[in-house]
């Protein structure tokens, strides 16, 4: 691809979780790392998120969840992506994700799991190194 190729990221807040300071800080950090970041805003249903992925065609989807509903929401999002044959998009989740929940989420293909206190450059590097296309 030519030098115009840009990394495009979707930052989402799934479910009934209004705490989006972290998502906004992350969006800003990825922007400053030279990426094109779409922030969807809060209260997104899995269907909204998958529709947005289809239309925006991002390289990565970053889900920010602090409400504890990650085990309910993330697998649904992954299943819906699969329904649409979307398998070349990195999907990461972060926020408050207890260690014991990681195996289940990993089984569904999610990555990341960064929580409070993570340095922003760690996440930027993670994104750059884990893109699927």
């Amino acid at each position, binding site marked *: *691809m*030519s030098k*115009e190729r*840009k990394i495009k990221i979707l930052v989402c807040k799934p479910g009934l979780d209004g705490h989006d300071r972290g998502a906004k800080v992350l969006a800003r950090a990825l922007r400053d790392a030279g990426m094109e970041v779409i*922030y969807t805003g809060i209260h997104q249903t899995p269907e*909204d998120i998958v529709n947005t992925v289809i239309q925006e065609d991002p390289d990565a989807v970053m889900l920010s969840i602090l409400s504890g509903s990650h085990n309910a929401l993330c697998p649904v999002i992954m299943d819906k992506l699969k329904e649409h044959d979307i398998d070349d998009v990195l999907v990461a989740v972060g926020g408050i994700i207890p260690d014991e929940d990681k195996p289940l989420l990993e089984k569904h293909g999610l990555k990341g799991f960064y929580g409070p206190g993570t340095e922003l450059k760690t996440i930027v590097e993670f994104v750059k190194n884990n893109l699927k296309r």
Partner: protein
Amino acid sequence: MDYSGLIEKLLDGNTRAAARLITLVENNIDVAEKIINSIYKNTGNAYILGITGAPGTGKSTFISTLIKIFIDQGKKIGIICVDPTSPLTGGALLGDRIRMKEHFSLENVFIRSMANRGQLGGLARATDDTIKILDAYGCDIIIVETVGVGQSDVDIFKSAHTVVVLLVPGLGDDIQAIKAGIMEITDVFVVNKMDLDGADRKVADIMQMIELNETYKYDSEKIPIDFAKMKDWTPEIIKVNSRTGENFDILLDKISKHKEFLEKTGVISNYLKNRIKTETLQILKHKLTKKIEELLNSNEVIEEYINEVIEKSLDPYSMANLIIKMLENKF
């Protein structure tokens, strides 16, 4: 890479194919050329509505309300939202979707965010090509939201059939209304947030400006050809509330009135000719610039010219003329 599969799917109305083709067009102009080449004959059916205005005038919320109305009319709608790219890092934060959070279904609404990637004028390099992709995808109406523009980002009037400019009460006085630039390319003025104080004053300021245009019509001989659609049309003005949808019925009448005007007077064919001309000029500029850059970076003779300019035996204008001669020999 194989685009023909994607293009076939696009013409079938496949949403993912449309999205992927837009990405390709954004990332690589040579690929864009091939894609547009194969879909061009399937374009020209959509009505293109340009929405522009200063940052914070409510463009995204306004569009969200428009989408709802067009859905009720059974239309398929494409939306392109352009936001600025950082000149420092090349990154961008695209936030227009936040205001369009209604649960629009995938079948009749396609929203795409786009960074302008440093292009001035309020649009991105790929915007015109994306319009064509959404047109071939089957959209009846394509709404283009420009970057929150300043006073002279007027490129949208070359891409859109009807240009709607959003204004809000309390921002600028009657002098702003008679400045050149964006106020001159408007087909329909919308004073948004009509519930705020000063909405009627804003409407009056603009009316005064329009009336002035009436009594002092442009000397049509002097207007450059690409502005030709301006004459004979008196801009409409309406105040609305995008949150409640108040006055949107009147607004839509005014947009239809402009559409009818374009068709009845034949201005539309004029507009088409101009659009093709400016678009081709853009493509030529891009291609020629690339050629010239290649030449500048690889040619020994040019190194000599540069040295001569340093020694003051040549000046940059004369050097440019010499390079044009070199190019002419190549063609």
